[in-house]
């Protein structure tokens, strides 16, 4: 890809893409030979651009690499000290007293994620079906920006909303303090909705129009087409969307820390305070030192691994999906 070619014909296209703004403002004189379609200056600019984009890509890779290295180096000693088994399965997280078990945190993170998914995924898929199959273009242009806007709200605003508005209402309706899984589920369900909805809508739209027409031609109703034809056809894309939603739910921190209540135990009810893998870092980092700080980096390693598992599973599922069709 060192020089530009028209992707359709493979012919060099010197005029359209090979010029950047500078040459447009002050065009180079054509080369002396009159035969070459790409001037030397253009060639170097192309090469420079190529390397620029390579650097951009490398920054992203280096960022991931450095973070993983740093977190890994900082957190590794805790596995050596308390043992990886004890760290993962210990039932008590009380670092200032020498207990480094993150099992309650793992369980709580999974509980928070699962509930958010149960509430949020059907809502999101419903929204996507509505946008892709049901809504008139006019309605769609109204609903879609609203859904997209949900994704743009900073998570701390969700948390603040949850803490100040939602929590007191839940405290009044169900007793207790209003902190707990239930409150977190409601907030997270709304937060993962735009992620899942947007990707599900993409998946539905990529189902060829001919399949819809064939379904209708067979006498299927709209509902039958959506339920029996479109959703199964878009299955892989929808599963990807849900996994991305899971990643967002389990990694969410600011919104959760404000409404979870931060008790370091597995809660014995959905209206009882709890602490997750992400929120423990926010809560403990200001004062943690020594092994406690190391343990927090250990928690970060676990989070990193969980998120890598999500990304990997999306890749595997997508490949599997391609093999199928």
């Amino acid at each position, binding site marked *: 890809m060192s020089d530009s070619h028209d992707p359709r014909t493979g012919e060099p296209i010197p005029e359209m893409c090979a010029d950047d703004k500078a040459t447009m403002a002050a065009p180079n004189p054509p080369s002396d030979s009159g035969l070459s379609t790409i001037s030397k200056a253009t060639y170097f600019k192309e090469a420079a651009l190529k390397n620029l984009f390579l650097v951009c890509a490398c920054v992203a890779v280096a960022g991931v690499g450095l973070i993983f290295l740093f977190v890994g180096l900082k957190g590794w000693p805790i596995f050596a000290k308390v043992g990886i088994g004890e760290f993962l399965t210990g039932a008590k997280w009380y670092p200032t007293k020498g207990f480094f078990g993150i099992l309650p945190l793992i369980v709580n993170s999974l509980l928070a994620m699962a509930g958010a998914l149960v509430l949020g995924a059907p809502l999101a898929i419903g929204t996507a079906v509505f946008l892709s199959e049901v809504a008139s273009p006019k309605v769609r242009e109204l609903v879609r920006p609203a859904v997209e806007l949900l994704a743009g709200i900073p998570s701390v605003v969700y948390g603040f909303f949850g803490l100040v508005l939602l*929590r007191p209402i839940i405290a009044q309706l169900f007793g207790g303090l209003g902190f707990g899984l239930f409150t977190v589920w409601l907030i997270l369900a709304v937060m993962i909705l735009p992620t899942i909805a947007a990707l599900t809508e993409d998946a539905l739209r990529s189902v060829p129009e001919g399949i819809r027409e064939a379904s209708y031609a067979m006498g299927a109703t709209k509902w039958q087409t959506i339920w029996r034809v479109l959703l199964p056809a878009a299955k892989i894309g929808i599963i990807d969307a849900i996994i991305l939603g899971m990643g967002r739910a389990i990694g969410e921190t600011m919104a959760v820390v404000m409404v979870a209540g931060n008790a370091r135990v597995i809660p014995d009810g959905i209206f009882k*305070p709890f602490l997750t893998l992400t929120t423990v870092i926010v809560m403990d980092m200001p*004062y943690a030192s020594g092994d406690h700080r190391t343990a927090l980096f250990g928690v970060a390693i676990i989070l990193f691994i969980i998120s890598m598992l999500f990304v990997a599973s999306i890749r595997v599922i997508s490949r599997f999906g391609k093999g199928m069709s």
Partner: protein
Amino acid sequence: MIRRSTVCLAVAIAAVCLPGLSGCAKADVASQTSLTVTGSTTVLPIAEVAAEDFQAANPGKRVLVAGVGSSAGIESVANGTSDIGTSSRDLKPEEKSLGLIDTKIALDAIAVIVNPSNPVSGLTKAQVSDIFQGKITNWKQVGGPDLEIGLVNRDEASGTREAFSKFVLGTSDFDPTAAVLPGTGQVRSVVAQAAGAVGYISLGFVDSTVKALAVDGIPADEKTVADGTYPLWRTLHFFTKGEPKGLVRAYIDFVLSDKIQNTVVRDAGFLPITEGGK
């Protein structure tokens, strides 16, 4: 996920670097144009605002204030890296031999607060202890309505938590199922909005949205704190190595002046030291 990890990393880096920054505050100890005050985060609001006013009143003088915790403050004044070590606790037995002079600068009482709708108006210290250990879980066990108790605790970084734990729990642990909130304001607003909630905050932060309980029959107010009858109170200290002199003396006198005591100290939610009976 990646972006979130980056944020965590940034926080982590900041947290790693901050203790390093406070180490910078050692400069110019000998020179009398600059003064270093380190220690308790509870005392920080007083020391910091007083430092600004002091610098405004004494052009050319600099007061560097850092909140690193009471123990670290005492350590740093003892080994000479700072001029004043601030503390929200008394000296421990092993610190008595360091030759530190104690100047008491303010009083802080800790109030046990409940929702105003809660008919319970007082508890014994033992009951408070049992409640925060999770042994008493319903208000009816202490003469209130049949209502589950919602425990609100502070995070472990809190000096208030440390003091409360020492006063009330002794060597016992807090109930781990209690909600843990990172600030006085949050504790107050949560207690104000949940009928069964109970928490503890500095007396200075108690307002009409919550009700401060009497402890052992003694109401929590300025008068009972001043005469020393209210059991949950502590003194905030400035420790100096030897008798304070020069700029150190001037700054301490400034903090003890009526002006600072009646504005800065009260604004920060504490009681002037002159109110103290002892």
